[in-house]
């Protein structure tokens, strides 16, 4: 696949700004830019099945026992606090071994993978992520038995992390 030059590379930065502000129908200008920055179509999002296959394998997967906390509205996609809690005794026999954070719209689907164990005491992690637009986030927990559990959360992102040129 030949990488396409971005609109910003073809036009100068100032040209681009002038063009963008001059365009009365702003969306017609912005749509192709967004599409390229995210490498998936403007309206395309990964489905839950897209996100789960590959990580789950042949194990059973249920939407249960995981809570994913994200702000409903994130003003700035470059820094969104996310926390994941999994109901688990975290004992030697029954604990959470992995937590995956997956995004339906970021260019890279897997935001992060965490490795936990019985030494953790609590199956809970928090971090701050980048989001390329409004989307669904998925937290997938893999238990020591191999079973997978997940939770979904919707986020509205006003300003995409991938648009930022600074």
């Amino acid at each position, binding site marked *: 696949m030949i990488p396409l030059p971005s609109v910003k590379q073809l036009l100068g930065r100032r040209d681009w700004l002038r063009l963008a502000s001059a365009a009365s129908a702003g969306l017609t200008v912005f749509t192709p830019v967004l599409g390229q920055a995210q490498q998936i179509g403007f309206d395309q999002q990964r489905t839950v099945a897209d996100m789960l296959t590959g990580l789950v394998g042949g194990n059973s997967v249920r939407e249960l026992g995981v809570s994913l906390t994200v702000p409903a509205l994130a003003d700035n996609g470059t820094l969104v606090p996310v926390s994941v809690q999994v109901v688990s005794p975290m004992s030697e026999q029954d604990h959470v071994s992995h937590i995956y954070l997956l995004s339906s719209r970021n260019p*890279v689907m*897997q935001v992060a993978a965490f490795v936990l164990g019985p*030494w953790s*005491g*609590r199956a809970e992690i928090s971090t701050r*992520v980048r989001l390329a637009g409004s989307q669904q986030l998925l937290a997938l927990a893999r238990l020591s038995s191999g079973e997978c559990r997940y939770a979904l959360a919707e986020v509205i992102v006003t300003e995409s992390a*991938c648009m930022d*040129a600074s």
Partner: protein
Amino acid sequence: MTQGLARLQWPHNIVAGDVVKVRLLVQHPMHTGYQQDMQGSVIARNVLLWLTCTLGDQQVFRVEPSSGIAANPYFEFFVRAPTSADMVVRWQDDLGVAGEWQQRMFVADRKTPVP
């Protein structure tokens, strides 16, 4: 080459066996590979490939971030503190630069209740 700056925080008073919340902040730009500089050229991807925390001899936390983690990555996790030990944080990024940060976790002995 080892360099890097991190901040580790946990509660002041830890008693043996407590489950402690650890807060970790690492200084790193986490360039996504999609951003451009002021000249319009793409900044090469430079994100943390992995980061591990070791308490004593036990590796207690490992994360494999991608470009989806915000600049200056921040992580919160829990760990059961059995005894005083060094918490060692190690990480490596796309440029091959490795980082290390070490901090002592002091844990008080659990007092047996007086009958």
